[in-house]
């Protein structure tokens, strides 16, 4: 018999897996990323449906309770994901800067060639 929290978490995990399926079908992220998230949510599913597996996992890591080891792993994963997002944002900033600089340089080139061609036209007189 499932507890209330198990039912709630089960619904949430099924919803999350459905989002991963839909986004990977739309090719919003790669197959590798989709597999990563499927594994995360499937691990969550196992933990929710078979809570004793988390106790065994806790024993492996020398931690008292199953829920503690889940929290520790989740925190470590979250910190890593935040770092990856930060790196992605920095990459985007660099790309924006590259575009802004390229546009400025191209405009500058057009401006100087317009000036030099008008000077050449003037000298023909």
């Amino acid at each position: 018999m499932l507890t209330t929290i198990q039912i709630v978490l089960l619904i949430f995990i099924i919803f999350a897996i459905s989002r991963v399926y839909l986004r990977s079908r739309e090719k919003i992220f790669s197959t590798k990323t989709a597999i990563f998230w499927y594994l995360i949510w499937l691990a969550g599913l196992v933990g929710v449906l078979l809570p004793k597996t988390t106790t065994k996992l806790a024993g492996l890591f020398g931690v008292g309770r199953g829920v503690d080891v889940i929290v520790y792993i989740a925190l470590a994963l979250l910190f890593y994901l935040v770092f990856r997002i930060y790196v992605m944002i920095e990459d985007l900033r660099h790309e924006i800067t590259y575009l802004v600089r390229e546009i400025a340089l191209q405009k500058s080139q057009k401006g100087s060639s317009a000036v030099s061609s008008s000077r050449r036209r003037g000298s023909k007189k």
Partner: protein
Amino acid sequence: MKAQIIVPAFNESQIIFKVLTSLPRKLKGISNIETILVNDGSQDDTLIQAKKVDVQIVSHAINRGLGAAIKTGLEIAKKKRADIAITFDGDGQHDPADIAKVVEPIIEKKADLVIGTRFKKLQKVPFDRLIINWFANLATLMMFGVVSTDSQSGLRAFSKKAIDSIDFKGERMDFSSEILLEAKKHNLVICEVPIKAIYTSYSRAKGQRNLNSLAVFSRFLVRIFR
């Protein structure tokens, strides 16, 4: 020899006309000097004030930082085949007379990158700037193995070899240290010359906030440890 003075500016309408008109038109050993103003997405009348002076102007559509502006200026210097490029801050912190000092070692072929240092000459520098620059110099030494008394100086001169080979990624203040790393990577000869530091209430208000240095440093670490 052909020299290009690169003046990056962001919202410097109060002082940019004075800065641009104070720049030297002639220098010993230089046959041709051009000035490029890199307008880094200014939202005030910087562009209007700059257009009153006979300088080339390149504008970034949005503000991308001092490093990005310098990189644009160096790219133009490279395309124009300049023999020397000089970076000169647009906020009035530098004395135009010091341009001749930073250019001299390059003309004499004694250096490829010359840093104008504020800390070799005894002069009044705000205490917080002393501390921040000390830490920046230490970080530059520990991470890049480059010794500098003023790694964050805005007055620098680059030889043709330096213009062609230095390529940095930093967009904000972190690029200053990266220039030194690039110089070391390409075996460029670096030298420092003492320059005057001009601190006014205007330049202090416009300058980097001290807390920004933490953000700059963390962005720098992310680039290294990504």
